[in-house]
């Protein structure tokens, strides 16, 4: 039984991964964010000079920018930020023991049927095991095709020119306060390059890579899909990520070159104390397609608006998202599409579910620049409320400078109806099963695009969540 596992049982070297209490500051940056911390991170990673400068400049920008006052409630964030460590060396993340993982998290793992070894990885107390084999055979295929799928650190080391050409070009440090913060202290994440004309059938899963470096609090991912290539990248998993950290701020930059087709799928389920503030953006060139498929569950507050900058004629962007807010949670999510060239098309479909005192906000921007003639955009946001105490709001911003364009927006709010529940219950389902079926039907248009194992996990997760909604 997991409860009795010790570090030895996990096959880890006890000396190397010894326990460190809060008072032992070995390997850790000090609390809070300052120049010393930034220099230390850069030195630890043995980075080139330009990256150190990049980080320091970003720190200045971070300090100069005020906290955003829109979106979710960030009033307590300053206190949180004063307390956290901005850099923790990877091996230190193993310091927690299985006994420290809260029982409710363990129970969720059990009920999701996640194998024990994987449970430990998810709880941050073990290394990745089984996926090693799969990873190696795929890696061979990728190497043969010239595909680069590395940690962001290795990307910088091994492909310095390609890296420098694109890093920070999609999301400049100055974009917002949190992109500046991430630019100053980023650590962990992926570097991906798909060469011209290469098409990959198997998705690149960040999950295979996490043993190299545990997913960071300040992950940074840079993806370049070269001309005519086609690939799918998957980040995260539906099981709750248990972390004692209460802050996650990632930056994901994607360049989709002419004629390329790229899909980025994220499913994240953070623990309920987490502020999750992520900036993710793609530059989409001529006749290229970018698809964001985004599932946000858990966290205390998530602010995340995947965006597509449609830069070349005929570019297409699509942003499909599912957000689930349970008691005390706020998902402030949506998407941004910028039409900067003629004949560009985009689609945003956002589905949110709020339960208990949960709150879901759709916040979206659709911008059509002058000259982007014949651009078409369609936005659809649907909110489902489970209880009378649940809440949803919609903030669609539309800025159109080009008359010859076609923008559609549609929003619906529905509540799980008594008649629906009665209908399903009269067929033998109990209230929780009935509720889960309604929710699954609601997200079906998006969930069906997920790889099967993710869709299955998502369904089970919804069932678990709905059990708590009844009574």
């Amino acid at each position, binding site marked *: 039984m997991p409860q009795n596992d010790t570090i030895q049982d996990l096959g880890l070297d006890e000396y190397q991964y010894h326990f460190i209490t809060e008072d032992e500051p070995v390997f850790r940056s000090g609390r809070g964010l300052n120049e010393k911390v930034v220099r230390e991170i850069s030195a630890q990673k043995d980075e080139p000079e330009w990256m150190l400068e990049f980080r320091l400049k970003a720190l200045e920008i971070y300090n100069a920018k005020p906290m955003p006052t829109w979106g979710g409630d960030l009033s307590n964030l300053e206190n949180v930020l004063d307390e956290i460590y901005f850099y923790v060396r990877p091996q230190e993340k193993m310091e927690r023991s299985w006994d420290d993982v809260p029982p409710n998290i363990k129970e969720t793992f059990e009920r999701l049927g996640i194998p024990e070894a994987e449970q430990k990885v998810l709880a941050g107390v073990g290394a990745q095991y089984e996926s090693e084999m799969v990873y190696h055979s795929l890696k061979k295929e990728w190497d043969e095709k010239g595909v680069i799928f590395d940690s962001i650190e290795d990307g910088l080391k091994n492909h310095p020119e390609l890296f420098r050409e694109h890093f920070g070009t999609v999301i400049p440090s100055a974009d917002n306060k949190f992109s500046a913060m991430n630019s100053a202290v980023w650590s962990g994440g992926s570097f991906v390059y798909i060469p011209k004309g290469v098409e990959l059938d198997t998705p690149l899963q960040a999950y295979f890579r996490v043993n190299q470096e545990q997913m960071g609090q300040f992950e940074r991912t840079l993806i370049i899909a070269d001309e005519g290539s086609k690939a799918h990248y998957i980040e995260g998993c539906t099981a709750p990520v248990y972390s004692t950290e209460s802050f996650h701020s990632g930056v994901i930059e994607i360049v989709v070159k002419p004629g390329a087709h790229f899909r980025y799928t994220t499913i994240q389920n953070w623990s309920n104390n987490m502020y999750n503030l992520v900036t993710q953006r793609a530059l989409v060139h001529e006749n290229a397609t970018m698809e964001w498929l985004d599932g946000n569950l858990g966290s205390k507050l998530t602010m995340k608006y995947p965006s597509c900058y449609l830069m070349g004629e005929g570019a297409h962007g699509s942003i499909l998202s599912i957000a689930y807010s349970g008691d005390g949670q706020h998902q402030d999510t949506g998407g941004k599409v910028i039409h900067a060239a003629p004949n560009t098309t985009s689609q945003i479909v956002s589905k949110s579910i709020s339960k208990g005192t949960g709150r879901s906000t759709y916040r979206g921007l659709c911008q059509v620049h002058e000259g982007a003639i014949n651009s078409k955009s369609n936005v659809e946001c649907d909110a489902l409320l489970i209880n009378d105490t649940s809440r949803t709001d919609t903030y669609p911003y539309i800025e159109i400078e080009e008359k010859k364009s076609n923008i559609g927006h549609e929003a619906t709010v529905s509540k799980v109806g008594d008649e*629906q529940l*009665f209908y399903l*219950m*009269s*067929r033998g389902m*109990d209230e929780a099963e009935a509720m889960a079926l309604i929710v699954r*039907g609601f*997200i*079906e248009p998006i969930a069906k695009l997920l790889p099967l194992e993710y869709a299955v996990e998502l369904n089970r997760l919804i069932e678990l969540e709905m059990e708590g909604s009844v009574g």
Partner: protein
Amino acid sequence: MSDTPILSIRDVHAKVADEDTEILHGVDLELGKGEIHAIMGPNGSGKSTLAKILAGHPGYEVTAGSITYKGEDILEAEPDERSKAGIFLAFQYPVEIPGVSIANFLRTALQSREEEGGELDLFDFQDELLARMELLGMDASFAERPVNDGFSGGEKKRNEILQMAMLRPELALMDETDSGLDIDALQVVADGVNKLHQENPDMTVLIITHYQRLLNYLKPHFVHVMVKGKLVRSGGPEVAEELEARGYEEFKTVEA
């Protein structure tokens, strides 16, 4: 044991849960195992209310009287418990469940009937579903359509009977299944119900209808007339014919 009724309704008074107005003013009815009964009556007389109360709709409250099913008081039972005990209601107005296919819906419903830890055999399920759809003249592709979402009136009604065929109730309540069906569809559905009744002669059926036509195919043993929340007349199949000829006029003067 056909002498013990499967369902017995005694002096039931009922109202909408959060309102005071009474809808049923003392209904008495007994259904023997394997019998086919029909209730007819003008619009708004309380037929659907009675059916929904039997299925356990939380929007209504029984204020007096008793309902026993297989000898047990079921008034406190939840709709899902009643369903598992064998009661089925084919809705007058079936409800849309967007994004949930008929196959998925039925699989979930049947899975919930399994014992704790039991797994529904998906191959058997699939075979059975296809066979039932064929029986009811439905195209196999129909199974993938979201439940009642965008269905025509007739398709909705046929889908109710498909569910009935899959769930194999012991007490089937059919609330105006015939309205919305074209003449051919009515015959197919009635044949389907007759087939189910042959498969299980113990299945008891309560048909709510406005028209004699359905009763030509599904021959009731007893016909009851509901007016203003009360059953004002009960008899054999001839009652339906009289109504067809004379309407409800003579009953409207009856004291409510």
